[in-house]
């Protein structure tokens, strides 16, 4: 069985975000780039299938050269090969453009399953995975917290309010993953894993290799664009009330009434 995991490199969630001079992008000079956490759950899900039923796992990503680091991380965890679409023409592409690139790259790969995070934690658009499924003409199962493969079908569980639904789809299929770190506990690469990852095959492709042109998927083709970014308002620091319990209660009531005007 072949599984392709789509991986995006995103700024670490603790990064101090600064808005760039153009007012619609972020400054990237002081950013620590990491694998999108939801994609990491997808890698973990694929590796669990690799362990249980046997599978060859390919990591597919697009982005500049630094993206190699995230692919190597997934290879160190246990994935077998990597493919990176690195083309400056993809800069500024929207979700659909990215999906087109990934779908085109998928064509050259053999796969029974495509895994990815349900969203990337940078721009939180929740689109690319679903669009790739559509473009590849395969079914999509969303927000999975588990994945099993039996008899040519993939079965996943998805939490809904207070319960879980189990869904299945015929292969080939695309699954987007949800959950949280505590649900998946993605494996920590062992040292031999890290050593081996350095020697695992990692192919770099351009748009031309995929038979695509910049005006199909690049900034010009983007139907959605960011027009402005602004930082959230700084929160006022909390206030500590002094005195004994009765005094504190009185003061709190006064503040809620006079300042917050909620009572």
């Amino acid at each position, binding site marked *: 069985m072949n599984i392709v995991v789509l991986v995006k490199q995103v700024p670490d969630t*603790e*990064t*101090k975000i600064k808005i760039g001079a153009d007012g619609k992008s972020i400054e990237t000079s*002081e950013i*620590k780039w*990491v694998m999108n956490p939801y994609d990491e759950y997808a890698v973990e899900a694929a590796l669990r299938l690799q362990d249980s039923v046997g599978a060859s796992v390919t990591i597919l990503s697009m982005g500049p050269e630094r993206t190699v680091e995230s692919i190597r991380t997934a290879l160190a965890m246990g994935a077998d090969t990597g493919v990176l679409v690195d083309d400056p023409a993809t800069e500024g592409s929207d979700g659909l453009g990215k999906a087109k690139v990934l779908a085109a790259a998928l064509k050259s790969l053999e796969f029974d399953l495509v895994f990815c995070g349900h969203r990337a934690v940078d721009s939180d658009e929740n689109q690319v995975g679903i669009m790739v499924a559509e473009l590849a003409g395969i079914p999509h199962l969303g927000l999975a917290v588990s994945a099993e493969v039996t008899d040519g079908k993939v079965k996943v569980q998805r939490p809904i309010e207070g319960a879980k639904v189990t869904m299945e789809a015929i292969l080939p299929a695309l699954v987007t993953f949800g959950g949280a770190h505590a649900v998946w506990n993605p494996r920590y690469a*062992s*040292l031999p894993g*890290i050593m081996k990852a350095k020697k695992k095959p990692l192919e770099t492709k351009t748009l031309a290799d995929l038979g695509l042109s910049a005006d199909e998927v690049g900034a010009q083709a983007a139907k959605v664009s960011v027009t402005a970014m602004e930082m959230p308002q700084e929160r006022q620091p909390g206030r500590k009330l002094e005195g004994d319990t009765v005094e504190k209660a009185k003061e709190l009531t006064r503040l809620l009434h006079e300042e917050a005007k909620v009572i």
Partner: protein
Amino acid sequence: MQPGYFPANVLFILIFVAANAFFLFTAYKLYRILRLGKPEDRFDRTSERIKSVVTFVLGQRRVIREPAGWGHFFIFWGFVIITIGSIETFGVGIYHGFAYWKFLGKGLTNVLYLLQDLFCTAVVVALCVALYRRFVVKPERLRYEDQKATNQDACIIIGLILVLILLLFGARAAEYLLAQGEANRYFPRLAFVSVAFSRLFAGLTKEGLQAWYSICWWGHTVVILGFLIYIPFSKHLHLLGAIPNVFFRRLGSVGELSKMDLEDETAETYGISTIEEFTWKQLLDLYACTECGRCSDNCPATLTGKPLSPKLTIHHLKEHLQAKGKMLLAQQGAAEAASVNPEGELVKALIGDICQHDELWSCTTCGNCMEHCPVFIEHVDKYVDMRRYLVLMESNFSPEVQNVMRNWETNSNPWGLGFATRGDWAEGLPVKTLAEDSQVEYLYYVGCAGSFDERAKKISSALVTLLNEAGVSFGILGAEEKCCGETARRLGNEYLFQSMATELVEIINSYGVKKIITACPHGYNSLKNEYPQFGAKWEVYHHSEFLATLLRDGQLQPQQTMNKNLVFHDSCYLGRYNDLYEEPRTLLKSIRGLKLSEMERSRNKSFCCGAGGGRMWMEETLGDQKINDARTDQALKLEPDIIGVCCPFCTTMFEDGLKTCDMDEEVKVYDIAEILAETVTSEKE
């Protein structure tokens, strides 16, 4: 069978040779087992090593730290003196006319016999005390899982020594009486105990005396030779292991971890997962163990009921080594391999069967076990070596540890806070970064806690105040600073540590830094003692020693009086790891009105706060009390106003401990820099 006459002498020689051959054969086997271990260079600094043996073996320096050790002192020296006497005894066995007085003269022989009598008596007393201790007092540290076997072993040893001494006195007493009025015989009269024993034989004929002499002589000799044979099979193996173990002890910094070769492409495994992967010195440690239990007596994990007892770890490793070692040697020998029982020792997993996971992860690396081991067993690196295997090969550790490792990887700090905000604590403070001015004399290496932890940031700013007050030329790295990786290393992640260390060395060296000050004992120990493995050549000062120097030189002068009772807590990595006990105390004593109180477990006996060895980042769910709560209780016994510390981790652990017992309003935790800053500056304001 009169000793020394034919055929008794032939019989004696046969027994003597057989016993020694058997002993040498067993010892050689033990040596071969030791050689199964990996190489390690401990052959440097010979004169220092000899000095160690003089101090710690002949002088028994560490043994006599505790009252019970005096018993050992006398038994040890009694043993040495008896052995000198045994040479004469054996000489007599070969030829009846052999006697020391004929070579040494009567005077010297008298002195020697007197010494022998005195020490033999002392040994008898010490053995009685030992029996009393083992069977009446029953101290916790003498407890073993298989108490019956341990007690049996002890009784055999104590019994053998008692019997051989009493028989020696018997033989001597008879000898004394036989020598009376004989021109060619002589007995040194200064041996007054032997002389006193002769009353037992009063009124016996010469033949009777001769018979008693033969009985006692043979008994004494056979017991000594029996003892020789028994040694390697009992805990008295330490007679063979301890002296070389003291000789080959680690002379440099305590608990310095070995630098793993991660570049070696042929390496198939990292860390230690089988007993024979330890170095020969780590295995020698096992032979040297006397099972005295002082390690566990001082271990914070043992004392709070965790599934870790350094004493038992060593005991289990020793049993496993001997059992598995024999099988491995047999396998090496020939095609016997197939006959080795596959269910036996060979298939036991070092981690899982012999040492438990919880055991390895319970260690705080505080070094109290090593500090109190009379024979210098190095426990801590064994735990770390096994952690290394679990981390590097199996990625087998708790989720919270995984989380903290990821945080180090992405943001070079355990909290995972944005690396670019590392220097933010210093905003608005009068402190420059090296990027702004690299001509400063000292780099203040702040460390992760001092940079990111709200509480520890106050310590950093107090130190900045003091350094400015004293006019020290210093700077920080700010956002360029990185974690020193100390904790990652102690958690077994040598790969992460080495990548962090390489990076930090590069940054610091890029500014041509020569001298470093830090307020974190962990960073201090790491930069000072372990970074030289990565090419660092810096003078590193902990703020306690640096501030003590500034006070001594008058660059800082406490103005304010502080009428408070302060209990001082020694950090493991400052005290035991770096021998800095006086400096923080000197500093505190310079403050008028401050009463310095000492806990029972203080200085080299200081009880870890519970944060070392990566425990800071792990849940503490095992045992009957949290280590920090136990230590807080110890401090509160002295009814302090302040708990004085000099480590950001200790600060957190005590503050948590005080919150647990709801004493955080009454008692405050301060770093020595905060206390000094308060007294130095507030008058001016």
